[in-house]
């Protein structure tokens, strides 16, 4: 009896585990502290990859939603991927905000800054949450999928507009020393390598999660249909007997 694992997911899982192990060892121990930022740069090895994955997840949800709407057969597979990607994405987005906030506390002494990147990230997070709430509304599967897909594509329109407005807004509040949230990090070879490994690790983990979760969603749907068919057959048997 097969669960949701296949060769692909096992490969991804293995890659993720190995790469994550490197990130932990490299990030916490092997890499040096930064000249400017000190130890807080270590958070970047986790923060940057989670941010990257969160944005990737958002793009995947949007593309899968578009794929669902354009496909003639309206295959629900696209919808399941869109949903799985958003679920995983919202978690990564939350982690991005938390790790970024901790980094900010260490670097600037503040948990939060009203700068465009952070503010847009917070908006992206709330938008994800809204999208998942829409997915939870009642209705027939095709109808729910279409609704969610439209909302996802509207979000693609909304996020750049929000970001642009916030950029303009914050440009009114120029300060003498503009602190870039990314920090002016001159990373040496080992640090950069650890960062890239982190990106690979978290992307592999993301892919693993999305594959498993969309398959779980397929199982739930199939199981539900199977249950329905069995119930109908049982009724018929009763009526016949």
């Amino acid at each position, binding site marked *: 009896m097969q669960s949701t694992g296949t060769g692909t997911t096992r490969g991804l899982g293995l890659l993720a585990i190995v790469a994550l192990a490197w990130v932990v060892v490299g990030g916490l121990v092997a890499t040096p502290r930064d000249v400017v930022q000190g130890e807080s740069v270590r958070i970047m090895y986790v923060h940057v990859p989670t941010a990257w994955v969160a944005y990737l997840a958002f793009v995947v949800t949007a593309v899968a939603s578009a794929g669902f709407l354009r496909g003639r057969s309206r295959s629900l597979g696209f919808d399941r991927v869109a949903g799985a990607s958003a679920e995983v994405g919202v978690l990564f987005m939350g982690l991005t905000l938390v790790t970024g906030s901790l*980094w900010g506390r260490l670097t600037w002494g503040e948990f939060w800054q009203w700068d465009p990147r952070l503010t847009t990230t917070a908006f992206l997070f709330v938008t994800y949450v809204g999208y998942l709430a829409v997915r939870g509304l009642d209705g027939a599967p095709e109808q729910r999928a279409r609704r969610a897909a439209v909302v996802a594509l509207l979000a693609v329109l909304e996020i750049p507009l929000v970001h642009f407005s916030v950029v303009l807004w914050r440009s009114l509040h120029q300060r003498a020393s503009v602190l870039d949230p990314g920090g002016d990090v001159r990373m040496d070879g080992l640090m950069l390598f650890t960062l890239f490994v982190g990106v690979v690790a978290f992307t592999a983990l993301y892919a693993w999660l999305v594959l498993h979760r969309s398959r779980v969603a397929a199982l739930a749907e199939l199981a539900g249909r199977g249950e329905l068919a069995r119930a109908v057959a049982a009724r018929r048997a009763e009526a016949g007997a």
Partner: protein
Amino acid sequence: MSAAAPVALAVMDDAGFVIGSYAVTAVALLALVVATLRRARRLAPLVRDEDKPWT
């Protein structure tokens, strides 16, 4: 001694935040992985293998 203590404290704070970040990330992701696998194990027996598109 009095100069070293605040410095040591500063390093402690930094380390606390750094390890905290890694810990939060690890716990959250592990929780999602475990929850996903458990749900998969629960649902898989309910569906015939032939019906699963990835087998």
